[in-house]
């Protein structure tokens, strides 16, 4: 397992979810003649002026409100996403300027499908844990696109979460340990220049999502000597509602443990934001001493597992920025036509 010599904690956290919602029944109406089941109730849709950079900026500002540190003390700003607005030009430099952290920083964009954000968090644990830096801003955010009519279109959503990592003594939660499990598994991909991703249909479940999450989770708990019963909360990557429920059950977690962080039913799959927005919703309500188990999943494929414990500093920081549920309540329903315009699906020749 990954454990640094210097203990590291989450000093501040924040989320952002756009206000527009596309009900899954709208997709059924347009593509399936109104007949058929849906994997979620509705998903978040970014406005015309939003993208991974603007989502990252607001999540990062919320994390800074809770961290209560001078932004010039941050030594790295890392943004994990599969929908960076530029193919060449970092998202991280714009985010760093917007939060006042530039210029004496590391800046970089991370990619690993939906686990790019947790990969950035792990790098931050190493950077702070080694003593090279006191604070790191690690972000996961996406404005995911699904091909019109494809199964992914029901769930591909937008949102992000940001974490200020720092010395454990200042943390609202301490990162006890982390562990990753990575293999070459072609379950989902998008080629350079392609607008929409492709996926291996049924291949996405067992050999990809379930195998990687359970492998990372079991190994981390085995090495730490913990079991599901030791945690008050658990949160997993959530491409729909059923997968995280099933993987939780496979690992011995109950509904009571996973329901607080399971948000995909009302916001969809926020890709790089998925498990970590769930983590922010947990931190909004967790109490000192609570332990949290979190596992991401990125296609291609891999999982990052984390074991956290909440400190007595959390309660006073929870109210310093908008809660994740506040963003979920801020909701403007749109129909498929407006959705098509917002997501650039109409080609004006």
């Amino acid at each position, binding site marked *: 397992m990954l454990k640094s010599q210097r203990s590291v904690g989450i000093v501040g956290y924040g989320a952002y979810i756009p206000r527009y919602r596309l009900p899954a029944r709208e997709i059924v109406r347009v593509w399936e003649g109104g007949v058929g089941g849906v994997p979620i109730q509705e998903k978040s849709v970014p406005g015309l*002026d*939003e993208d991974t950079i603007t989502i990252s*900026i607001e999540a990062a500002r919320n994390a800074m409100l809770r961290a209560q540190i001078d932004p010039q003390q941050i030594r790295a700003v890392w943004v994990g996403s599969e929908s960076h607005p530029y193919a060449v030009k970092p998202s991280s430099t714009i985010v760093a*300027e*917007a*939060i006042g952290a530039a210029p004496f920083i590391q800046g970089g964009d991370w990619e690993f499908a939906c686990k790019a954000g947790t990969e950035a968090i792990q790098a931050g644990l190493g950077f702070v844990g080694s003593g090279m830096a006191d604070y790191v801003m690690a972000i996961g955010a996406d404005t995911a696109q699904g091909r019109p009519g494809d199964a992914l279109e029901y769930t591909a959503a937008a949102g992000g979460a940001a974490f200020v990592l720092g010395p454990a003594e200042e943390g609202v939660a301490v990162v006890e340990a982390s562990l990753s499990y990575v293999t070459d598994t072609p379950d989902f991909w998008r080629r350079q220049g392609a607008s929409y991703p492709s996926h291996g249909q049924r291949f996405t479940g067992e050999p990809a999502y379930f195998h990687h999450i359970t492998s990372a989770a079991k190994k981390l708990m085995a090495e730490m000597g913990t079991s599901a019963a030791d945690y008050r909360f658990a949160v997993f990557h959530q491409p729909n509602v059923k997968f995280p429920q099933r993987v939780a059950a496979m690992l011995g977690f109950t509904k009571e443990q996973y329901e607080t962080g399971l948000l995909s039913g009302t916001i969809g799959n926020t890709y790089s934001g998925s498990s970590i927005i769930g983590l922010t919703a947990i931190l909004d309500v967790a109490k000192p001493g609570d332990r949290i188990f979190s596992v991401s999943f990125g296609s291609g494929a891999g999982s990052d597992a984390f074991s956290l414990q909440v400190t007595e500093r959390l309660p006073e920081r929870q109210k310093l920025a908008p809660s994740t549920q*506040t963003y979920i309540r*801020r*909701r403007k329903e749109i129909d498929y036509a407006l959705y098509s315009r917002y997501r650039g699906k109409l080609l004006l020749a």
Partner: protein
Amino acid sequence: MHIAQNWRLKAQRYRLVGEVCEHCGAKIFPPRDICPNCSHSAKESFEFSGRGEVYSFSALSETAEKFQRFRPYTMALVKLEEGPLVTAQLTDVEPDKVKIGMPVEMVTRRLMEEGNEGIILYGYKFRPMLDKVA
């Protein structure tokens, strides 16, 4: 789009960084190095909270080519809580829901882009105060 000019303005565009007059304490935005209140030179930078209220507004449906993509939208004069008036686009609000005195807060959003290959310009807009709408 003037890349160099926009680049120089990034602190005020991304973070609402203006100035404070060391002489009379007036907060100044956009920065202009001279205090509009007492005419002394004012060069100390000051980051605004981003909170304010709608002072006046107009809904736009006919707009310049580069903003066509966002229409219809609302342009507003926002009175910042520190005093200055700022002209900005409102976002995350339907034009018929905007009211004078409505509390708003600054967000950083896409202002415009040069086609599919050009630079994307980011900057401040204002939206209804989050804790008032959720």
